[in-house]
């Protein structure tokens, strides 16, 4: 009984902040609440959802958000693994000291808006450092943030810079949980480093990789801060994410009903990596 009383305040606040919004969005999405209705809710059946189904901008943003999440999380896992192996140091050698770890962790600790503003300068055309390098090499400057075909990748690079440390730390913890005897046994068998990685480390790391992928995918599908400050969704909407589109609907177009519909749709999209992860867990569980 006491146990429940101790949990009650926290659980209440959690329900108010996590569950109630979803219920509220479901209600809002069944109503028109915009400037046209003087911001008063008016039930409009499924009109918001019909509009969503036919909204080219929503589907474009959904595709862009998925592409952003898939590419940036893929790169983060790859680089994060490399960084984790680097931080662990050579077998038998000393792990990287606190200094290197602190340096590597720094990008992750910065507020997203701060690092986004920093990257805006790095990408600046023609005065930013990247273009200064291009020009110094005798190449023409490149408009990193105003090329609709490629700006999304500039955003991915900034996100990879920020989030790789998180993945690396998680995988480093995984690496450190692997008993060194296993690795030594493989070395005695004459396995090279690549074989050790493929046959021993990767299989044993897979739960950690799955966890990192799950967490990063969920965060990347809801990306907002970075894109709002770095590109504002541009050029020509080519980097707009679903969260940013929902924000614009609610705060700029003052259409709360449709904004809530986009938010709820984004939440449904989020269930996708969760389901994939559960399926993967089940398969891993039955294989073991």
């Amino acid at each position, binding site marked *: 009984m006491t146990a429940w009383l101790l949990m009650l305040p926290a659980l209440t606040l959690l329900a108010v902040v996590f569950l109630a919004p979803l219920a*509220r969005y479901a209600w809002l999405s069944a109503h028109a609440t915009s400037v046209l209705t003087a911001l008063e809710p008016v039930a409009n059946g499924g009109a918001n959802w019909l509009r969503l189904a036919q909204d080219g901008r929503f589907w474009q943003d959904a595709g862009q958000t998925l592409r952003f999440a898939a590419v940036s999380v893929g790169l983060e896992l790859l680089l994060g693994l490399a960084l984790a192996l680097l931080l662990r140091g050579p077998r038998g050698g000393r792990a990287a000291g606190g200094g290197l770890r602190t340096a590597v962790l720094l990008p992750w600790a910065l507020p997203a808006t701060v690092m986004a*503003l920093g990257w805006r300068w790095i990408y600046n055309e023609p005065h930013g450092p990247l273009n200064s390098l291009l020009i110094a090499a005798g190449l023409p400057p490149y408009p990193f943030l105003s090329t609709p075909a490629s700006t999304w990748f500039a955003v991915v690079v900034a996100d990879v810079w920020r989030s790789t440390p998180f993945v690396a730390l998680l995988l480093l913890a995984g690496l450190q949980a692997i008993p060194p005897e296993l690795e030594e046994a493989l070395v005695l068998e004459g396995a090279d480093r690549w074989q050790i990685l493929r046959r021993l480390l990767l299989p044993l790391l897979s739960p950690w990789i799955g966890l990192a992928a799950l967490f990063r995918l969920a965060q990347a599908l809801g990306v907002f801060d970075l894109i709002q400050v770095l590109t504002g969704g541009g050029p020509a909407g080519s980097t707009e994410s679903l969260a940013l589109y929902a924000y614009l609907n609610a705060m700029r177009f003052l259409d709360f009903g449709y904004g809530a519909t986009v938010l709820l749709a984004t939440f449904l999209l989020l269930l996708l990596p969760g389901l994939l992860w559960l399926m993967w867990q089940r398969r891993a569980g039955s294989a073991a």
Partner: protein
Amino acid sequence: MIRAVALLWSLGPLLWQLYTSLRPADALVSGPQGLGSPGGGIFGGWTLQNYSQLLAADPPFWRYLLNSAVVGVAGTALTLLLAIPCAYGLQQQRGALRWGTLALLLAASLFPTALLFLALLEWARQLGLGNHLLALALPYAALSLPLAILLLRAALADLPPELEDAARLEGLGPLQRLRFVLLPLLAPAIASTAILVFLFSWSEYPIALTWISRESLLTLSAAIARIGASSVFTIPYGAFAAATVLGSLPLVLLLLLFQRAIVSGLTQGAVKG
């Protein structure tokens, strides 16, 4: 060699901000693109004018840092106040109830919080919480609770059960056991949790953006975004860079001081949840 590349990749962008922030505005845009431009070259003409400009602005830039610090401390305190008893209560539960709650908490800790802004804004308006710095602690604590409870619960599970049994035999009630026996032993986990929650509250953006409109109450994140959006047509990158440096400095200090606690918090939270 590879370590040097990793260092350069992590610190390069920041060092470049530091360099930019110390350059006079005309050196950044004059000549053939800044780097190695005539009249001064890469290392000519240092200046602190970008910083003095930021600190002389109205409100001065340190105000945003102070606001973020206030919100960060308040959010962290409220989170711990709610999370510690909850983790203790959760650890007393058995079976499906405990695992179900843990699974829900894990799902909530994965949730991208930007998606919650609209509903939270509605409540803030109804309750008149807008433009109050301390009110931000409420959503920040709520959003930090899942991770905080998971971390603290995992730390509690690591303590030997005999400890509590002995205290119970001594006649201590559950709250006294928590206060006098368990809490001192939880100190490292509480420190890890606190620093992670502080980092989150310090940096949070969507809620600060929508709850706070008064210039003097902006947190660092919201102020940086506003500075970035305010001047699309000029290139005050010296000032941007100075803002980035000033905004990063407190975190560099925190990281240097608490690197170990942060790392253990991050990894424990993921694994033992």
